[in-house]
């Protein structure tokens, strides 16, 4: 009897707290890889999202309510993100979902959010199918193809290099970059001498490097993340290859420079975060992120920060947390964020310019900007 009473009392307390919390805050769901091979990106994206929530709450929240970030670990694994999406929607009753994760988990979660009619924003996952899930799904970063096209312009036009070897990471990130690059290579007069593929687990590139050397290209377009690109670039340079190496946002971060050391000097990437930006939003973000996280800002962090800001502004504009109203507000949004001005096309894809960054004296710096709306136009369907 006593136990039963205690149980009822505890249930009552739980219900009281859960209902009262639901009334006081607006919940934003966030899936990110906090463990497993992508844990470092999960850490950065969570810090970026936390920073945005902290800043918004310090300024009075949204429509008089504080934001609350609900973070779950998806291990960058598609099968993990499905139960997480269901939990965020059914149990946590989030107003908006945000992916701070890779393409695989984001793709599977996107379908569930679409079905439930809850807006979902991909912060930096690049697979084209994500926004095809439906009209509730948005993306605040570039599609892989778009960034690949920018890479072709960077090499063929800005650098004027025509004979290129591609080293492609064999996952949907690397492959969609390669597809975009190949699509526009001819337009910029580029001949692709050879393409080599490697797996995300590879760190030793001796064989590929030896072959690239015998190919004798003018430039190398190599996709990868900092943990593959760092070893790859240092091994390329150690073998005596001196031609420019062009990467993408996967390299973005201080860790790449730490791993590759002197070999990182002169590497150019296409990305979303300009370290030398004069825009107040970007300067503030870079400073505040370092204060909160204790390390230098990267693209992943800036993208998650942007995605939360976009979600918050949409809720403010909608003056409600009604999912349909938030969706409509997102579709028409225009926000100046750390990664540029965010506006969506009819598919929910972002339209913004590509920032090229180069490593100089152990730091990422401004190289050039690609702002060609036709080249960078994301698909509408």
């Amino acid at each position, binding site marked *: 009897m006593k136990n039963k009473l205690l149980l009822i009392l505890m249930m009552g307390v739980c219900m009281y707290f859960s209902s009262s919390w639901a009334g006081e805050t607006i919940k934003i769901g966030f899936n990110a890889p906090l463990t497993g091979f992508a844990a470092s990106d999960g850490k950065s994206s969570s810090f970026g999202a936390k920073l945005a929530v902290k800043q918004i709450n310090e300024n009075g929240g949204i429509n008089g309510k504080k934001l609350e970030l609900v973070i779950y670990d998806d291990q960058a694994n598609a099968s993990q993100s499905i139960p997480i999406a269901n939990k965020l929607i059914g149990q946590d009753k989030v107003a908006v979902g945000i992916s701070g994760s890779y393409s695989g988990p984001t793709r599977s979660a996107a379908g569930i959010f679409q079905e439930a009619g809850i807006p979902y924003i991909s912060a930096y996952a690049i697979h084209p199918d994500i926004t095809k899930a439906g009209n509730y799904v948005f993306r605040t970063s570039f599609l892989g193809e778009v960034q690949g096209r920018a890479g072709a312009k960077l090499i063929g036009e800005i650098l004027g290099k025509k004979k290129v070897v591609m080293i492609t990471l064999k996952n949907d990130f690397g492959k969609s970059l390669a597809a975009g690059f190949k699509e526009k290579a001819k337009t910029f007069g580029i001949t692709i001498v050879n393409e080599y593929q490697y797996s995300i687990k590879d760190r*030793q590139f001796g064989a590929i490097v030896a072959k690239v050397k015998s190919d004798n290209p003018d430039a190398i377009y190599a996709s990868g993340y900092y943990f593959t690109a760092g070893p790859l670039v*240092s091994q390329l340079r150690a073998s005596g290859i001196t031609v420019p190496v062009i990467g993408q946002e996967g390299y973005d971060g201080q860790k790449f420079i730490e791993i590759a050391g002197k070999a990182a000097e002169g590497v150019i990437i296409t990305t979303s975060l300009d370290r030398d930006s004069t825009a107040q939003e970007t300067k503030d973000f870079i400073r505040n992120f370092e204060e909160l996280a204790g390390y230098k800002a990267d693209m992943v962090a800036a993208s998650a920060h942007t995605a939360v800001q976009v979600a918050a502004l949409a809720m403010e504009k909608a003056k409600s947390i009604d999912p349909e109203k938030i969706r409509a507000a997102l579709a028409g949004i225009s926000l100046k964020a750390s990664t540029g001005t965010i506006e969506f096309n009819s598919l929910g894809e972002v339209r913004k310019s590509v920032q090229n960054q180069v490593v100089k004296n152990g730091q990422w710096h401004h190289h050039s900007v690609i702002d060609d709306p036709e080249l960078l136009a994301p698909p509408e369907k």
Partner: protein
Amino acid sequence: MLYIELFIQGLIQGSTYAIIAVGLTLVYGLLRVLHVAHAGLFTLGAYLGVILTNQTGSLTAGIFLAAIGSGVMGMAIYRLVYEPILNRPPHVALIASIGLYIGMEELFRLVFGPFGLSFVSAPLQSVVVFFDIHLRACQIITMITNIILLGILAWISQRTRIGIGWRATVDDPEISACFGIDPVRVRYLVFFMGSALAAVAGVLVALLSNLVEPTMGAVPSYKSLAIIVLGGLGNVTGTLIASLALGIIEAFGTIYVGNLLDRDAIAFAFLIVVLMIKPTGLFASR
């Protein structure tokens, strides 16, 4: 020229496989346990090597301390995990070992952080050029270390009392115990040596890529299983040859069939072909 360079790159890669897999095959020969957590000791060695080298400024000290640290940890794993379940069926130890490996991976992430560690200024990166082939000092050292360590191992097992005792224990634990050889001491020795070798391999791989990550043991954990099966389970010479062969096949495979087959898939395709022709592996020990 390209072929020679690919061959050398294959030998370097194969050397790292050999140093990892030898420890695994020693343990299998002695206890009939597939010691998956061996790859965790490889990662531990790499972390200790990088941290201690950064602290002391001496790579030699880093390698030496990493080998001792991983070696002691290997003995502890034998005592705390394998010894209590040795008389259970072999899959019990295998499952325990896989669980232990996953636990170690997450522990590394919690303790050392998810970003991975690098040398502050990576040693042995100076480049040696001969006939237009550029090799970093650490690549050459990897091949030399492979030869030296395996030479020492051969010497211990053939020429020293403890080594002879160890081989006797592998052949017949009961009879050798009757001759006054302590089987438990032999097991500790094997775990210490195997784990110390894994640590040396870890530091060498850290030098090659200047990156130590919590998940760096994932590939060696299963690839070294393929290698010891190829080499004929428990056979040290077979393991050595299988490692080098696999390194060379991967180097050529990456270039010529890499767009169809993953590097890891090449290893297992090779394993399947060999097992179809010779089910006991290349060099069956008995």
